[in-house]
């Protein structure tokens, strides 16, 4: 890097007069001697609980309460994973979670993109004020709107259905999503729209034919975030779903814990199975993942 080159040149010129410790190369070596051990130690701290999760999930019942713990159990109890499917309706929970997750992804991605298009590419009176209102809703904690929303869903008979978890996502998919897509659309040159208009394209033609095809990366980010949020969601399913055949994985596994409080191997297996799609998704779509996290964290 340029920075490095400049530094090396300067040190070379001044070598005779600079005290030993201030020399870049020496300090760099010392620095690296500190950095790597610290980073490695930190990684171990971060990964240990995960290793513990995997290891516990593979222990036969007799080995869970052995001190000191055996990291690689003998024998390895692969059947724990099958047992979870037998003890709880894991497939049903997965299906329910998938319905909610996919429904919310469709609702959130489609409506957020459309709204973002309006805010980014069309001119209308009050646009900037409305956008400020949109941004300020990020600050409102969901508890403030929770109770009236619950009462409303109760009134229209939607309690214990998936609707309260899916339908609201069709109304913009959250301020963050809209903001994310809007920023993306703002970066595309306006000449694209003008050229299309000259060719007789209407606003929505521009949206569908010109902008959407280019927005695939940002739609990917949005879909991943929506997936993670809904797959892992706990609070709302807890409030809205009452009957066992409607439970999501989050609720189902938490209930499982209540009945099997000593079967840590099975609980770990269930938790790991639930985490698996998220982990796979991360490794498959790492670039989108990191982009999304970085974006949502850097600018508000």
């Amino acid at each position, binding site marked *: 890097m340029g*920075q490095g080159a*400049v530094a090396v040149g*300067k040190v070379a010129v001044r070598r005779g007069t600079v005290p030993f410790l201030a020399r870049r190369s020496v300090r760099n070596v010392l*620095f690296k001697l500190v*950095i790597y051990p610290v*980073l490695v130690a930190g*990684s171990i701290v*971060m*990964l*240990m*609980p*995960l290793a*513990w*999760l995997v290891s516990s999930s593979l222990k036969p019942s007799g080995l869970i*309460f052995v*001190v000191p*713990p055996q990291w690689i159990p003998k024998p390895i109890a692969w059947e724990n994973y099958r047992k979870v499917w037998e003890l709880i309706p894991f497939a049903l929970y997965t299906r329910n979670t998938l319905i909610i997750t996919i429904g919310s992804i469709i609702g959130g991605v489609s409506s957020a993109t*459309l*709204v973002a298009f*309006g805010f980014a590419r069309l*001119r*209308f009176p009050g*646009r900037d004020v409305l956008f400020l209102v*949109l941004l300020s*809703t990020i*600050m409102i*904690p969901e508890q*403030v*709107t*929770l*109770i*009236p*929303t619950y*009462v*409303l869903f*109760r009134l229209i008979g939607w309690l214990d259905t998936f609707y309260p978890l899916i339908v609201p996502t*069709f*109304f*913009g998919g959250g301020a963050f999503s809209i903001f994310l897509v809007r920023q993306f659309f703002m970066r595309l040159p306006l000449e694209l729209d003008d050229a299309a208009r000259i060719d007789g394209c*209407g*606003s*929505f033609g521009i*949206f569908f034919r010109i902008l959407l095809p280019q927005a695939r990366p940002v739609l990917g980010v949005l879909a991943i975030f929506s997936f993670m949020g809904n*797959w*892992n969601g706990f*609070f709302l399913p807890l409030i809205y779903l009452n009957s066992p055949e409607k439970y999501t*994985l*989050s609720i189902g*596994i*938490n209930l499982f814990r209540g009945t099997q409080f000593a079967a840590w191997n099975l609980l*770990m297996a*269930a*938790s790991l199975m*639930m*985490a698996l799609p*998220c982990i796979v998704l991360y490794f498959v779509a790492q670039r989108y993942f990191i982009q999304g*996290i*970085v974006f949502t*964290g*850097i600018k508000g």
Partner: protein
Amino acid sequence: MSPTERREAIEGYIAISPWILGFFIWTLGPILASLYFSLTDFEVVKPPVFIGLGNFRRMFFGDRLFWQSLKVTATYVFVSVPLGITLAFAVALLMNQKVKFLGFFRTAYYMPNLVPAVGSAILWIWIFNPEFGLLNNFLANFGIKGPMWLAHSKWALPALIIMSLWGVGGGMLIYLAGLQGIPTDLYEAAEVDGAGVAARFWHVTVPQMTPVLFFNLVMGIIGSFQVFTAGYIMTGGGPRYATYFYVLHLYYNAFHYFRMGYASALAWVLGIIILFFTLLVFRSSAAWVYYEGELRGRR
């Protein structure tokens, strides 16, 4: 307005109409309704009965659990948020030193965030198990007898804070990207001016990073005040209300006792508390957040 402009405006409103509708149905309407409910006695099955400020009077003067939950939540927020940001920033700084295996380190630190909230709550109950858990067995290697963690009223909240730090990888990714985005010519210029490592850190890195740190501080405060899942699953608010978070109190009032009026009042107070701290951070930010293109201080 010309016909084409009018047409574009109409299409604009159509495009944003899902959000406009949603804003009235899911945001503004419920906020106002919740304000009204907070002034009533409302048990869902019967229509609300107006009682003025009764709920608030009861909250402030007759509900010890309200104060307890506020204390617990504030402690959680003001320990875990600064600690989490500092740790995440420190790790990001180390990773930004052109280290090898960056991809591995990044993934290793981020991995914990991929475990669903319920899964990690259950995992950590097991890790904190005083006798058979990972943590106390690890401490035993050093001859330390670990505490009872979740079962002890003094250790339960620190345990949940420790668990929250397991998630620093998310912030780390953000800060790392921020650090990588700092233009190298700023460092070069500082170096030409004779700035050492420390000076470059304080006069280039920190000012360039303050907007990001600030934004994450605000979002961290907003998010942490709403902490729920860990307390609900891992401790149920106990032992002896040591982890009885504010939203737990709200949840139990609303969905166990069906005191919807009282719970709405609790929600409003939470909203105001969050707003207060957010504004406080915003106000103070003028003193320490540096934005590009802004002249301030020594420059």
